[in-house]
């Protein structure tokens, strides 16, 4: 049966996507390596840190078979620094510096593992932070502070998103560097609606402009020949 959802990922689909991010776990139990459909997983040997996809890490965490080592940016210190950065600039804070020479993009970048850069928010920061705070708050230092900082960050960034609507123009590209996955999912309907609406309003104007230009061009190039034809007719 056909899908009834609007085009573009919905917030829950974005969360599904985010669950493919790699995180670092500290296993509490042994588990042999598994041949999963998405590639083999490394064997778990306590207490060695192991990278696993988030969905599997959450499964292990819920069954108390492992602890999740939160990414360095999900700490009060880093979030405070990023919040200051967000407040000081009208654009979104830059994404973490990507490891060179890979064409992979989120959620397949190592932006949520224990060795991720501590000074930048990755693409799935909001979903990932929320999920970790919900399922693994005992693994996070000062979870309440982190929760409060996340909320502040979200508000600052949402205000930027709203302010950015002012620059939306029909037909022009709109720069959204540094935007997060969940922010796209939430703002998509509004932003694309405004862009498409402005385009439709601008389209009629544009069409008359093009027609006028084409006419002028035609007159410019064809002018001489037309005169000749006219002369011959006469």
């Amino acid at each position, binding site marked *: 049966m056909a*899908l009834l959802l609007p085009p573009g*990922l919905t917030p829950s689909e974005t969360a*599904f996507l985010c669950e*493919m991010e790699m995180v670092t776990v500290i296993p509490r139990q042994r588990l042999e390596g598994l041949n*999963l459909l998405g590639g*083999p997983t490394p064997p778990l040997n306590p207490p060695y840190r192991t990278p696993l996809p988030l969905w599997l890490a959450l499964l292990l965490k819920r069954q108390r078979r492992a602890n999740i080592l939160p990414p360095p940016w999900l700490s009060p210190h880093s979030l405070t620094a990023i919040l200051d950065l967000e407040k000081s600039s009208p654009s979104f804070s830059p*994404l973490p510096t990507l490891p060179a020479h*890979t064409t992979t993009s989120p959620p397949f970048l190592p932006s949520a593992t224990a060795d991720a850069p501590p000074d930048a928010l990755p693409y799935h920061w909001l979903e990932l932070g929320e999920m970790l705070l919900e399922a693994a708050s005992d693994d996070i230092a000062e979870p309440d502070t982190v929760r409060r900082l996340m909320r502040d960050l979200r508000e600052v960034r949402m205000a930027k998103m709203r302010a950015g609507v002012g620059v939306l123009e029909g037909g022009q*590209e709109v720069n959204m560097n540094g935007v997060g996955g969940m922010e796209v999912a939430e703002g998509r309907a509004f932003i694309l609606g405004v*862009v498409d609406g402005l385009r439709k309003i601008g389209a009629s104007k544009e069409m008359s402009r093009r027609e006028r230009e084409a006419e002028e061009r035609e007159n410019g190039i064809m002018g001489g020949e037309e005169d000749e034809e006219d002369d011959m007719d006469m």
Partner: protein
Amino acid sequence: MDIDDILAEVDDSTIPQETRDLQELTRTWVNERSAPELLPWPAELMDRVLERIRQQISLIEDRTSSTDPKSSFTLIILQTELERFKYLTRSLLRARLAKIDAFPLHTLTHAPTRALLSPSELQYATTHTAILHRHFQNAFLGQFPEGLRKMDDSSGGVNMVEGPDLEKAVFVRGRREAGVVIGGEGVGKEFLLGKGEVVVVRWGVVREVVGRGEAELI
């Protein structure tokens, strides 16, 4: 293609094929969910993924017979992952069906679009349109005057067959190290989209670079 892209490909080859397929499937899914028109059917990728899903199901069925508590947890992991894969493929197929259903006549009559369908999708679209047409014919079209019965009339300068709006805005992210040039001749101002950069732009402007995999929709 420049040196960075070649290096990136060499790097990618150390990743297992299964993982690369998951990444490709995920990207295909996100693109298909976000693009206003139908995208090419990834035949080889889907063959590999569906075959692996089949194997995994039979593996799980075999293992379910054993009652060892340790292997039962492994089984839960395998099943959870299987469900995630099934969701991904199903959502991809359903997103495609939604587009076929939205513009059935355009999909069948517009040759480049028709070529994007998988064999089963083509069969579905053909049969579904035929049934629908027959129903309309019996229900009311048959009672109309001869000249008004067509479903694909294009006389009078207005085509009845509706297609997708290719000028809809989309969110695009660059994938190439050296950036990818967007726009140019006849499609507006030219600009460079760097790796990881995101812009909102008309689909018509980026459909080619997305098709080549140099940029992706988000």
